[in-house]
């Protein structure tokens, strides 16, 4: 456990001056900005409705179906890319620490980054609502938001995304090619658009984050359950695969 914390501490330093670190704040900010302008521009259309709910569902939908899967793809590829481009795997795996701790630290770092992004997203929602209450008073954002609901939705989306986190961590560590890692993520997200209406969509991992906030309780529970369990299985299998391989 001590070695895992050491590896995590080492990983955190590597993030300094990286695009990956900036993206933790930029990605949720883009989603907030988009939803902010939708409400700002079409204030008359949304006036009289529960605007906090409109904001929350709008932000969460864009985040869960589109931004989060692509963001996970980008972050995992960027983090592993640090090692691939610096030819650092051979250095890391020749250190006197368990090999699994190198893999686990990478996975936990990206999980932590996505968690921070989720927090930024929630804070951004509140901030956007407060700003709109001043700029567009007719939207009635002055009423208090349902913070519990907001946090619950964000958490469910996050938990359902574990399977993608584990999968993309493995892909990006296992293969050197940034294009391959990005291609898999883009393809997965692209097909999610078509799979969303299909019955099989409830078993499609790239839809788990959005399914986690589905109005269907069955779809929601399945997404969170499979997201967590599938994530754990892929994390263990991916770690086993990577640490046993020859290091280039």
């Amino acid at each position, binding site marked *: 456990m001590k070695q895992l914390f050491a590896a995590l501490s*080492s990983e955190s*330093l*590597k993030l300094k001056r990286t695009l990956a670190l900036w993206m933790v704040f930029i990605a949720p900010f883009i989603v907030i900005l988009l939803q902010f302008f939708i409400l700002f521009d079409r204030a008359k259309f949304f006036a009289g409705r529960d605007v906090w709910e409109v904001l929350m569902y709008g932000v969460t939908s864009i985040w869960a179906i589109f931004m989060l899967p692509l963001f996970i793809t980008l972050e995992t590829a960027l983090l592993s890319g640090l090692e691939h481009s610096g030819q*650092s*795997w*051979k*250095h890391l795996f020749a*250190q*006197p620490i*368990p090999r699994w701790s190198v893999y686990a630290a990478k996975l936990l770092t990206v999980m932590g980054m996505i968690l921070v992004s989720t927090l930024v997203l929630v804070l951004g929602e509140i901030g956007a609502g407060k700003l709109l209450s001043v700029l567009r008073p007719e939207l009635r954002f002055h009423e208090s938001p349902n913070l519990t609901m907001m946090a619950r939705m964000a958490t469910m989306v996050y938990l359902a995304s574990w399977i993608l986190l584990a999968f993309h961590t493995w892909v990006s560590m296992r293969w050197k090619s940034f294009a391959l890692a990005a291609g898999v993520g883009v393809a997965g997200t692209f097909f999610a658009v078509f799979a969303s209406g299909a019955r099989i969509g409830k078993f499609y991992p790239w839809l788990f984050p959005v399914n986690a906030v589905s109005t269907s309780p069955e779809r929601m529970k399945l997404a969170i359950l499979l997201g967590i369990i599938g994530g754990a299985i892929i994390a263990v299998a991916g770690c086993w695969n990577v640490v046993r391989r020859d290091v280039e």
Partner: protein
Amino acid sequence: MNHTALETVGLTRSFGGLIAVNNIHLNVEAGSVFGFLGPNGAGKTTTIRMMLGLIKPDRGRVMLFGEDLSSHRISILGQVGALVETPSLYNHLTGFENLEVTRRLLGCSKENITNALGIVKLTDAAHRLVREYSLGMRQRLGLALALLNRPEILILDEPTNGLDPAGIREMRALIKQLPGQSGITVFLSSHLLSEVEQMASHVGIIHQGRMLFQGSLAELHAHQHERLVLGVDRPSVAAEVLTKQGWHVHQEENNRLAVDAHGQKDAASVNALLVREGLEVYYLSQQQPTLEETFFKMTDESVAGGKP
């Protein structure tokens, strides 16, 4: 007390159908600088990767300080510092931060960073981004990374590769001072014989995955065969005469002949024989082949299927 720092026993590894390393037995004495010499593609890097546990051997084992790497990986690697091919660096971090990344993994003191930077003479450039470093500085930082944990044994794979002459000189000087300064055993691979000759006390020669020679530099010198180079008026006739008498003769450029002959008595015998046959001998000189020639002779013999 065990005087062997590093030992490989029957180390073998294939890739596909190709045997990259074939039954390698290495024995590196503690406190020595061992030069692991071989042409590109001979199996040096594969051997080193097996020594560090980066790839698994098909057969054989690696022993460091008397312990088997496969069962004592973590404790053994705690005593090893390595620089494999190009240094593993993060360009967006400073030199100091690069060392700090590894220090956090190792859990050693921050003082180790200061010491390592001092040894490789990068103290002044420590807070510059690595992307601004020259190739020589990067290589020295790679060496600092390898020295960070104050290792007992340092494994360096082609440490001067790609450096300019000044960088090569600096790196050689750094490596040479290590055993005397801190008692480190250095295992160094190179495809340059002159480099190994300048730095190593012991040499291992590998070619096409097989060891051709292993011993001290003095033993390698003793392995060299003297030869007699001579100039005569009719080289082909002289070669025929000498060969009939059992001498090994090689025709060389500019009508010169080289004869495998040792010492002054052999020189006198060759001279007498040629003069007796009516040939005019212009000059005779005994020559010690360079290490390079010895190396190529060994590798050529190996290619031809001969034994070293």
